[in-house]
Structures are given as structure tokens and as C-alpha cells.
């Protein structure tokens, strides 16, 4: 009896020490989880998740305060990536979030802009230039299409313009026409 207890105790102690040593010896200085989450987010800083930007949302996810399906620009891909990273179950996106919008950029209608600078203050990536009472303009290369400049504009002179398809950004589509693909798409339409 005593031998058994001693054996088990000493074994437990030994393994405990081993584990403790391994923890120190093989310690991996990993990214804090918030940084890893933030890397997966699209960085549009659009706030459509209900948080002030991507970083706050990442913090909320890391703190377990928020679901992982709230990012509309990221869409399903981001949700799945987050689920993978955090070992959580994928959560279906709600209808509004899942709706894939074409990638757009903001355009300011020059003749209507009154130069109020409100949109400049709203832009999370400093993609709008202009001064008070001067007409503003969007730097198209920098615009992430987050739509945060839309609500503040007092004259509704900003519109979102989908990025046009040209020979530069055209991509080969996923092959269609195989028997299985046909059958699958038929099933999908039936189900949907």
C-alpha cells in the first residue's frame, strides 16, 4: 500500500518536474493571441462589427466577449480562419454580414462637396485629403472601402463605386461544367 502510494507520488513528481522543465526549455515566444487575430482581420477599420476598428474587435474576440462572425468585409473566409485559429466552432454569418458586396472605393462628388472635413475626420486610414471649405478628394489607392465616411457627410456627396473589372484584376474562374459540379450546383439551387 505504502509502496504503491510512494511509487505513484514519486512518478507524479518526476513527470511534474519533467513537464515544468520542458515548459521552460521549449518555451515558444508566440504572438499574443490578439495580434494573431488582428492579422486575420481585413484591416478596413470599418467598424461594421460594432467595435471601433479591427484592433478593438480582435481584443473582444481574444477576451471571449464577442462572436467570430461579425466581420462583413472578411466574410466567411475570415470567420473560418478565426475558427481555425481559436479552435472554436465556425459560426454561420447572419444574412446581412454574409451578403458579399463587390469591393468598392469611395468617390466624392466634387460639385456637391461643401468642404466640411467631417469625412476626413472619419477616415481611419487618412485616405481623404482636403481642407476646410475646400473640395475633398479620396486617394483611391489608399481607400479600403470601409464606408465610414458615408454617415458623417452632411450633403451625401460620397458614393461607393465598385472597382471595375479589367484585364489587370481579372482572375481565372473556378472550373465549371464537370458532371459533379453540375450536379452540385443543381442541388445547391434546389436547396437554396
Amino acid at each position, binding site marked *: 500500500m505504502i509502496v504503491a502510494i510512494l511509487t505513484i507520488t514519486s512518478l507524479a513528481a518526476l513527470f511534474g518536474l519533467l513537464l515544468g522543465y520542458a515548459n521552460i526549455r521549449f518555451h515558444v515566444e508566440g504572438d499574443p493571441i490578439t495580434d494573431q487575430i488582428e492579422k486575420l482581420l481585413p484591416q478596413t477599420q470599418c467598424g461594421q462589427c460594432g467595435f471601433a476598428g*479591427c484592433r478593438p474587435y480582435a481584443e473582444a474576440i481574444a477576451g471571449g466577449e464577442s462572436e467570430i462572425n461579425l466581420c462583413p468585409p472578411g466574410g466567411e473566409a475570415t470567420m473560418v480562419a478565426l475558427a481555425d485559429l481559436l479552435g472554436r466552432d465556425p459560426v454561420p454569418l447572419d444574412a446581412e454580414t454574409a451578403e458579399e458586396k463587390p469591393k468598392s472605393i469611395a468617390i466624392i462628388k466634387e460639385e456637391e462637396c461643401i468642404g466640411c472635413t467631417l469625412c476626413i475626420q472619419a477616415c481611419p*486610414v*487618412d485616405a481623404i485629403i482636403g481642407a476646410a471649405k475646400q473640395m475633398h478628394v479620396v486617394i483611391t489607392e489608399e481607400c*479600403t472601402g470601409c464606408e465610414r465616411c458615408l454617415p458623417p457627410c452632411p450633403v*451625401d456627396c460620397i458614393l461607393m463605386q465598385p472597382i471595375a473589372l*479589367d484585364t489587370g484584376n481579372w*482572375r481565372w474562374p*473556378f*472550373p465549371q461544367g464537370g458532371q459533379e459540379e453540375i450536379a452540385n450546383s443543381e442541388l445547391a439551387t434546389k436547396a437554396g
Partner: protein
Amino acid sequence: MYVESKKGKTRELWRFHGGLHLPEKKEMSLKSPLQQAKLPQRLILPLQQHIGVQAQPQVAVGDRVLKGQSIAASAAPVSAPVHAPTSGTIVEITEHLVPHPSGLSSQCIVIEPDGDDRWCELPEPISDFRAVDSQTLRQRIRESGIVGMGGATFPSAIKLNPGKPIKTLIINGAECEPYITCDDRLMRDQAERVMNGARILQHMLQSEECLIAIEDNKSEAILAMFQELREEENIEVVRIPTLYPSGGEKQLIRILTGREVPTSGLPAQVGVICHNVATTAAIADAVIEGRPLISRIVTVTGDGISEPGNLEVPLGMLAADVIAQAGGYVESKPQQLILGGPMMGFDLRSDQVPITKGANCLLCPTIEEMPPSQPARACIRCGRCADVCPANLLPQQMYWYSRAKDLEKVQDYNLFDCIECGCCSHVCPSHIPLVQYYRYAKAESWAIEQERRESEHAKQRHDFRVSRLQRLEAERKAKLRKKKEDLKKPAADKAKDSKQGASEKDTKQAAIEAAMRRAAEKKAKQQHAPKNTENLTAEQQAKIEAVDERRKLAREEQQNEEHSS
């Protein structure tokens, strides 16, 4: 394997993995000699005929241009200028259908030829190129708008600045794809041009050897090139076995040198530079005659063409016009028109697209000749694709993961070493469009990489903005604190030195009060009434009202939406 490459010299050849023996179908376009295409009504010159940045137009609508005049300049280091193929008038600078797998349009300059075909003043011919340094020659090649004419369309001048010693210069005359014969025709009829180009390139690169590689099914071309060889030069003509895709740059380098270009590396890393024969001939023209790249040989072939053959076509000529000069279509409703060969070319949606610098072949097959592919079936993992793959990939595994859209895993199987030669799809018993799966996976991977970079950039800008706002806020607070302290100080000191600083204090106080009054006024104004409302014109007034109305509507709408939701 050894072949004779020059009088009294043999070369060892290597072989690459896989490859296919395809029905050649080259004889049909070789029956007739090279013909000059007649000038059409219009020439449409896309600004993007090369890999890199689109060229910038240098002309305006209505301008008269001369043959050989530069009409669009290269806009970046990786770019190429465009020259007028004939004299005429610029009638439009507009979007026009271009030869691209997407079937989309792109910016083009439209020239209406005047029929005179009058040359502009060309740069000075360099007949003794050996006396000129390679910097000057490279500049000439760059200004002549020369790009890889085998189909890759990479600006040639850049390739000629390898920054590494080059041992072997390869002139690629393999032309391994079925049907295409434009390089064969060029070597048979104009061997001297090619040979001069090879000499120029060898001089520029100072390479130890220059190998002109030709597949052994082109015996006439081999003979013609052999006759141009000179004893004292280190140029050889190497007859390589016919095996598709021996004309692929990486495969050809393997055949000739036994070396392999490292993945995502350049041939120069193994001491090799490779140029197509048509490009080489164009370089000879540019250097020796000062002639820019304004025309090329195009093979027009297939059972759907009445008189298949090779035509020297001015760039910008519509495919439809070229085909008309080759006797037109056989059928009233042709099925398919391919730009390039049957293995790697892409389908054109319309024949109203211009011939560009990289367009080597127009192939119009009949439906019997190239029946549409059958519906794909399940992969049975037979591995035939892997047997024929010239890059020694595992196409069946790449297909599996591309289909599952598992992009990381496809890249793990070396997706980006795929040269899209089509061998795997060609032999697949299940008729799976493998190459398209790989193209999809590549495009998607690039897009994701691009997005990642963009989001990284956006994050940086956002972080910068946040830190700037914080700094401003801190500065504002510091100022405020200071102001408060300044205000307090006089109050505390009042009793102490009331006499001494009275006048000073008064002015200070007055200034502060004035500022506060101004601020209050400004605030009131902002809150209540719009500014600058005096002296409005009726038109301006109407605009304001319209804006107000729209705002009201928007607000109402928003309220309605809120209610309804």
C-alpha cells in the same frame, strides 16, 4: 544523347521529365511562302502589349503620325513603348477589345493609315555593333519596344541586364506547340536576321557560347541556320528531339545544359539567358536598321481557315482582317478561334481583337478537328498526369487540393512551378480541366497575397493615424493646462504686484476676453446659421435648398428604416 551542333562539334543533350509526342499539324501552314499582309482600314494598338506597366500615350486624337514613330512611351522600368506601324492619323484613344483570356477591353490607340506608309526619322543604324557598349544597345532595344515574342511578352531589355556572368545564351527556335510555324518560317526565310540578332546578343552578354535550339522536325530551318554559321564564332545550332514542351524556357535550359532554373528564380542564376528567335530577329532590326518593333509573323492555320499560312502582320491589325487575308473562314459559322497554340493558347471570344507583339498564331479549328471537351468525371488517380508533367509535379494531388480550395496545400505541392503546358489535361482519362484548376488556384493565391499586403498597409496607416491623433490630443491637453496655469497665475499674483503689472494685465485680459467673445460668436454661428448666406445667387440658393431637401429626405428615410426594423 549527343548531337552535332557545328562542324566538327557535338553537344551532349539532357532530357526533362515527362513531355508528350503530339500530332504536329505544322505542314498545313508551311505550304505557302511568307506573305505580307495588306494594310487594313484601321490599326488598333493596345497600350498594354507587354508584361509590366501600361504605356503612356504620347499622341492626341487628330495627330498625324509617321511609320515607326513612338506613340506611347514606357511609363516605368518594366514597360515598353508602342510605335506606329504605318503613317496615318490618330482617330481615337479608347477602350477596345484586346486579346486576353477574359475577353475584356483595354486602352488602345486607333490609327487610320493614310496609305503612304511613310517612315519617320529612325535612330541611327548601328552596323558595327561590336564597337558599341551594351548599355547603348540595351537602350536602343528598350526604345524599340521589343518584348518576348514567343508569347511571354516580357520587355527584352530587362532580360539583357542580368547582373550576373552569363555562360550560355540560348536562342529558342524549338517551337514545340503543334500548328505554329511562324518561327520555322522566319528561320527558313530570314536566317540571317536571326543570326545577326544572336551575334548582337552574344556581344551584349559576353556569353561563352550561343546555342540556337531547334526541334528536329524542322530540318529546313536547321539547314538554313547551319548555313549562316561561321567558323570563328562560338555559335552553334543544336537539333533537339521533338517533344512537347521542349520550347518551354525551363525545359529547354534543362535539355541544353542539364541545369535546372531554381524555383521562383531566373535563368540568369544558372548562367543562362533565353530569347525567342523572333525576338532575336527584332533585336537585329532595331540595332542594325534602327527599326522599332511594328510588325511580326503570325501563323494563321487550322482546318477552319481557307488558305493557312504565315503572314507578316503590322501590329494592331484585327484578327478578322488577318484571317480575311488568309482566305477567310471555311465555315460560315466558325466554332472557335484560338490565339496561340492548341496546348497553351487561349480562346478568343471575338475576332475583333488586334494582333499584339506576343501573338504568334491564330488557330481556327473545325469542330471535328478539336471537339469540345467532354464533361469532367471523377479523378481515378491513375497518375498519367504525373507521368507527363515536365515539371515533375503531382497534378492529381494539386487538383485534389485546388478543388477543395485548400490553397496552402496546393502551394505545398509546388503549384507555382506549374508552367501550364497542358500535358496533364491532355492525357487525363476523366477529362478534368486540370490547368484551369491550377490557374484558378494561382490567381486566388495571388489575390490573397495582394489582400494581405493591402490590409497590412491599411493597418500601418491606421496605426499611424491613431498615434497622430493621440499626439495631437496630448499636445492639446498640454496647451490647455498651460493656459489654465497662466490664467491662475495672474489671479494669485494680483495682490502682490497689482501696481507694477496693471497695464500689462489689462491688455492681456482684454485680449483673452476678445478671443473668448470671438470663439463664442463663432460657436453660435456654427450652431445656428449657415455661413456665407449673403449675396447668394438664385442658382446657389436653389442648390442649397436641394441639398437641404435631400438631407431631410435622407433623415426621414433613416427614421423610417429605424422604425420598420
